[in-house]
């Protein structure tokens, strides 16, 4: 639909000047919409997706759900996830109480792999300085071990402050919540 732009007479124009003043005058007396930030917070922060955090296991809040598959690191477009994995030879049964059944089933056929290599998540390093907040890591994680934090108050004096060790953060957060 092709229209013509409306033209304006001088009289209309002069009237429009007063109409404009009325609009601003009206807004002058309207309530403000400012969120007084350090004292108040905007109401929709919960939906904000900040940097990622590890999700703890439900039963054991000190370890994460992560199964160390490395998918997130691979999917990340900015290569900002680094998994530090410690390989540990775990002595089977006696000490291990967590999965006795599984081990027993596995143990009989082959005696050789008695010493099982267990991969332990030593650190989960996120270089937030590179992150583009795309959420691909969260999407790819098969066990939903990652979540977004809603923390938007980051600022610091060095850039190293934003290289997070997520495992530690997770633990600290748990400690803070359990103590507080």
């Amino acid at each position, binding site marked *: 639909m092709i229209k013509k732009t409306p033209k304006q007479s001088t009289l209309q124009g002069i009237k429009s000047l007063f109409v404009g003043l009325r609009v601003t005058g009206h807004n002058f007396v309207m309530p*403000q*919409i*400012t*969120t*007084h*930030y*350090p*004292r108040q*917070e*905007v109401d929709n*922060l919960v939906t*904000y997706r*900040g*940097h990622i955090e590890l999700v703890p296991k439900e039963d054991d809040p000190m370890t994460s759900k992560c199964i160390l598959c490395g998918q997130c690191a691979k999917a990340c*477009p*900015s*290569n900002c996830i680094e998994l530090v994995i410690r390989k540990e030879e775990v002595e089977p049964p006696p000490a291990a109480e967590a999965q006795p059944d599984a081990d027993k089933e596995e143990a009989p056929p082959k005696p050789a792999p008695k010493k099982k290599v267990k991969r332990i998540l030593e650190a989960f390093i996120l*270089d*937030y*300085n*590179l*992150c*583009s*907040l*795309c959420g691909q890591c969260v999407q790819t994680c098969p066990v939903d071990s990652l979540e977004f*934090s*809603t*923390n*938007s*108050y*980051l*600022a*610091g*004096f*060095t*850039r190293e*402050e*934003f290289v997070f060790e997520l495992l530690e953060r997770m633990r600290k*957060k748990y400690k*803070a919540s359990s103590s507080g």
Partner: protein
Amino acid sequence: MAQEDIDLIQAINTQDPPVVKVELVNTIFDICRSMSLWPMTFGLACCAIEMMAVGMARFDIARFGAEVFRPSPRQCDLMIVAGTVSRKMAPCVVQLYEQMPAPRYVMALGNCAISGGPFYFEGQYGIVEGVDKMVPVDVYVPGCPPRPEGLLEGLFKIQEKMTGRRWWPMPKQGEAV
């Protein structure tokens, strides 16, 4: 691109101390400076939009006296590098920084300004991997883009850096982190 655009230049940041140096006077000046940080209108990319948002009614940086966005570096105290600094832009950033009169402060806003952010990859040819390679950065605000609250927090950090104390209460959520 001309050759001068490709070399990364370091900003010259030498500074003479004031002629009169009295502790008390300096403190007063520092407090006043921190309460009226005029930023430079210096948007480079996406983060600039969030920088604009900070000036707008919802977040209103004016409450802290920092809404006077001056276009000329001569009248600015704070250079908010908001966005990606490309190699072609780098000399310009340096020049603008050098043209600011002392005391001057720099905030690197967004991951691009901090480190190249999403555009950093092996063998990249076009961006500067962090403005701190060229100008001294006082405060880093990460995010892509950081929320306006982040920028405000950065402003508080600069005030903290200047006066040695935080002036405003911690936000509720901020304490938890």
